[in-house]
């Protein structure tokens, strides 16, 4: 039973993540009074890319061919750890949030290496920017996590959700909300969303994530795009289930699982709306102002830890 749920969670993350990306694009398009591509566009894109020829530069090493598989694998592994529906799963015992963050960062690290690998100017530029942002974002992620882990008394994802699910007035808890905002800003930065990176353009001066994957084509590109979608899905699931754990199944009855699925869908739709609204209303920050934004989120995270110490 628990193994079945584990695979169900994996399947949800694998097959629903392109839909999530499509929904964000659609919502953004509607807010900007465009009709927008259909929500299932990314599935079609991936299928198209899978049937296309893959062109690999002669100058690249094994890293170039290895990284797309690594990205997809780390994301699928993370999908087994993150409590998408239920807190009681077989691999739950290794669901340590610090391990999870470093799984995400492993993908970032290899993607930055690949940006350098092909030796193109854009790749190197994208890699250096990505590393600069990751270096600023990582301490914030960890400190925000400590902020909530201190309150929960554990760094296990399942333990934290179980602990917070017992608190109905979570929304009014300041340390929790501060950690949420810090984590949210960092999630935007890590997933290459506005105001840090624009996911929709290949404008040479501003792109970060797109610059690193510029050399990819065919099935490698499909894997990279899909992994990016899964990463966004996992980050948003983590945000919604960790900070607003209402509805997450605490035991494995079918009813609880259905409720968890519906609750997750609702929470994700809210996040989709929030991100679409945010990306429509703010402009991309100048690259030199990104550290200020991340310093701001670092401040918020640090305050969350301070309050976790002093305010109960």
């Amino acid at each position, binding site marked *: 039973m628990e193994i079945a749920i584990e695979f169900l969670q994996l399947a949800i993350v694998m097959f629903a993540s392109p839909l999530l990306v499509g929904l964000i694009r659609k919502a953004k398009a509607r807010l900007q009074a465009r009709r927008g591509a259909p929500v299932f566009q990314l599935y079609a894109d991936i299928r198209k890319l899978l049937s296309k020829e893959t062109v690999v530069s002669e100058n690249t090493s094994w890293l170039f061919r290895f990284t797309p598989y690594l990205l997809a694998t780390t994301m699928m592994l993370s999908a087994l750890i993150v409590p998408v529906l239920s807190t009681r799963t077989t691999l739950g015992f290794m669901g340590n949030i610090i391990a999870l963050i470093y799984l995400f960062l492993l993908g970032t690290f290899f993607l930055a290496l690949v940006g350098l690998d092909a030796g193109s100017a854009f790749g190197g530029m994208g890699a250096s920017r990505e590393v600069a942002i990751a270096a600023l974002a990582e301490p914030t992620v960890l400190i925000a996590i400590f902020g909530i882990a201190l309150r929960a008394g554990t760094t296990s994802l399942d333990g934290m959700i179980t602990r917070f699910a017992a608190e109905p*007035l979570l929304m*009014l*808890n*300041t340390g929790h*909300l*501060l950690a949420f905002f810090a984590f949210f800003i960092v999630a935007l930065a890590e997933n290459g969303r506005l105001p840090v990176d624009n996911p929709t353009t290949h404008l040479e001066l501003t792109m970060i994530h797109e610059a690193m994957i510029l050399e990819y084509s065919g099935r490698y590109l499909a894997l990279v795009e899909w992994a990016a979608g899964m990463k966004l899905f996992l980050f948003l699931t983590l945000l919604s289930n960790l900070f607003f754990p209402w509805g997450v199944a605490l035991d494995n009855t079918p009813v609880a699982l259905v409720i968890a699925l519906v609750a997750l869908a609702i929470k994700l739709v809210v996040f989709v709306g929030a991100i679409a609204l945010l990306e429509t209303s703010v402009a991309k920050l100048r690259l030199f102002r990104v*550290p*200020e934004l991340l*310093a*701001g989120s*670092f*401040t*918020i995270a*640090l*305050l969350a830890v*301070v*309050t976790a*110490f*002093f*305010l109960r």
Partner: protein
Amino acid sequence: MSAEILSKLVNLLSFVALGLTILLILRARLEGQVRAFALQSFVLAFLSVLIAIYTDSFQLFGVGVALVIVKVVVIPRVLNRAVAKIGISRVAAPYLGTAPALIVCVLLAIIAFYVMTPIASSNPLPTADAMPLAFAGVLIGFFIMVDRRRAVTQILGFLMLENGIFLLALLMTYGVPFIVEMGVFLDVLVAVLIMEVFVYHIKDNFDSIDVGELGKLKE
């Protein structure tokens, strides 16, 4: 409304107020900074009305209304007028860069927590938990005053400092009597008006409102 919910709401709103103080550092444009101050004053007014409802205090309600009139409507308008007249809308010109200033703010907040937590825990009121936040607001307001070169942004630091003191009094004792609060509001209003005149004079004499110029000897 139970004491527990009140305590949490007060905590939350005090945090919003503190966050708006910190936003003053992140905002580059003066209009945005003035808006942050107006918003913070509105949060404080909301907070005092909330506590007024909890304690059935008509006086505190009056304080909230007066707060809206003086600090949400009148003072921002005066400041915006000054900004428009001097015409330096985008320069805050701090001595420290944004990131170091934010780190200083966190350090000040930690000091505030360290100093005020024992005092707050000896206070029996349900609002006392948020006292360290109000004190942090006072310290950060001070810091903004010291950190800024332009006279107008120093005024904003002063106003944030004053808001912090008001919040501290509100949380510690459910606010001081209405008449005292009125006196303080009028003082602040007059202070802002005088400072505005000062700013104009500095501007006339030095062609800039950089207070660093005041330290230089003139022929």
